[in-house]
């Protein structure tokens, strides 16, 4: 399970880095989104992977899930969600004001 999650985080990060290096705003926004997915998953598994373990103290439980990463990842999700909404609006506005969707505002000469 650990190996699978690591591979997922790695693939998401690689795709995010690749897309955020592209020249158009839409792939860049997608890349930033994938990066935030990767980091949310990464934060989540930093509390270690457990199955069926309670996050708060309960009688008879021998194993606990770490509740803190769940709180952290919730904060991170909310922040990245808001930031994604903002960057989508900004990309639309840049498309309207600059007349194209290139991140530098002008087509690169070929």
């Amino acid at each position, binding site marked *: 399970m650990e190996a699978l999650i690591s591979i997922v985080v790695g693939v998401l990060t690689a795709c*995010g880095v690749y897309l*955020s290096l592209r020249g158009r*705003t839409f792939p*860049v926004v997608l890349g*930033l989104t994938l*990066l*935030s997915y*990767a*980091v949310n998953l*990464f*934060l989540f598994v*930093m*509390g*270690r992977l457990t199955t069926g373990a309670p996050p708060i103290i309960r009688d008879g439980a021998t194993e606990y899930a770490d509740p*803190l*990463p769940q709180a*952290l990842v919730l*904060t*991170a999700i909310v*922040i*990245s969600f*808001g*930031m994604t909404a*903002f*960057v989508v609006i*900004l*990309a639309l*506005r*840049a498309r309207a*004001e*600059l007349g194209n969707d290139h*991140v*530098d*505002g002008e087509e690169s000469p070929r």
Partner: protein
Amino acid sequence: MNHLVIAPLLLPLLAGVALILLRGSAAPVRQALSGAATLAMVGAALALLFRVSNGEVLVYQLGNWPAPFGIVLVADRLAAVMVLITALLAANVALVTVRGADHAGRYFQVLFQLQLFGLNGAFLTGDLFNLFVFFEVLLIASYGLLLHGGGRDRTRAGLHYVALNLIGSTLFLFAVGTLYGLLGTLNMADLAQRLAELAPADLGLVRAAGLLLFVVFALKAALAPLHLWLPGAYGHTSAPVAAMFAIMTKVGAYAILRVYSLMFGPDSGPAAGLIDPWLLPLALLTVAIGTFGVLASQRLAQQAAYLVMASAGTLLTAFGLGDGAAVAAGLYYLAHTTFAAAALFLLANILGKARGAVHDRLVAGPELPHGQLLAGAYLLIALAVSGLPPLSGFVGKWLILQSSLGSTWMPWVLGVLLVTGLLGVVALARSGSRLFFEIDPAASAGAAPRLGDLAAPLLLVLIGIAMVVYAGPLYEFSQAAAQQLVHPDAYLNAVLQAGGRVMTR
């Protein structure tokens, strides 16, 4: 508990929320509320500074949860002085915004107050994840402020700024997650203590996380090669926003100083001295690149942006030297350069308006109304920015150069700072003669400058002059603050004992 610690956070937060509710009211009401909150923040920052000036470290446990399980705010000398610098700068910028610079949108004052909330939070927090949250607060407010007023160049620069900072936030979270996964805590004092007992097998991962954090803070501080966003963002935004952003690169420098003195300082066990090989050379490179930008700039606001970058490099040079005297010199220089850069941005805007169509481009322009007064203000501010006597820039640079004398890096620091200082003087003198002496008879002047607009930049210069007059006591305070950083035992003790634990380091 001492509620004074949280006052610099609550004032702008409550004012910001109130301003959202009052968005339909008349502009003077909103401006008065925002101005009053900013002035109250100056008062709270002064009170906090006096309270901690005896060396006491105030710890405020949010929700009364004991550290390290709850989140703490910590006010030591450094945090208090950063809050005061922010408050003084904000009061001067508020003076500009209430004179009508906020008319481009009704949410300007809201964003301004929330930016202050994020800045003060970043300076006062004692928790690494909380630092991330406050970074996001100040960043999202800065995105809104940066884009305020719109325009092609501003939108393009804003897009770069936002995308880069979002990537920076992602890296910050990766670093925080790695540290939590290895050490099981996010309280900075607790992290410092656990790093001292680090298992050798985990050393590589901790170093990777520490260097990732360094990349994030270096991006915020515009350390080369992560500086490319700064000239566009600062050079194209509106003047009060650019003036307020003069403190933003200092947040990155502050975070470097705080995290690396506390967690990776000389006594911190196996991971000590993590960024020492990187910080000083990159800082000197930043000064050099920034100065080339100053020389090549076509507009005064762009020149001011490159000067901010060069001064960020100078500041990090002082922090990179690392001993108490250098950090103290850096803190004095930090206060000076924040005020001087803000004054230059504000003056560039006044000059740009007065020069009509050529705006602040460094070409021959019309003869200016009140030209002698404007030229005098430019001379004062240029003297301060370029570090010539008798203004505070000279004292700051001199202290940094003096503190480098015992270091092995002495020839590099002296060479780079003195040569770039000379080039900066040349560039500012050339800009001044273009702006004031080269008259193009065909060009028509813009609206005559309102002399009241000069109040804010001249007040900032006045703060700089006060910093020279009181240089002795201020430098003693900086030294005391630097001692608290170089030997962080008082900070660790205060935080961990507030949580009922005994320090073992």
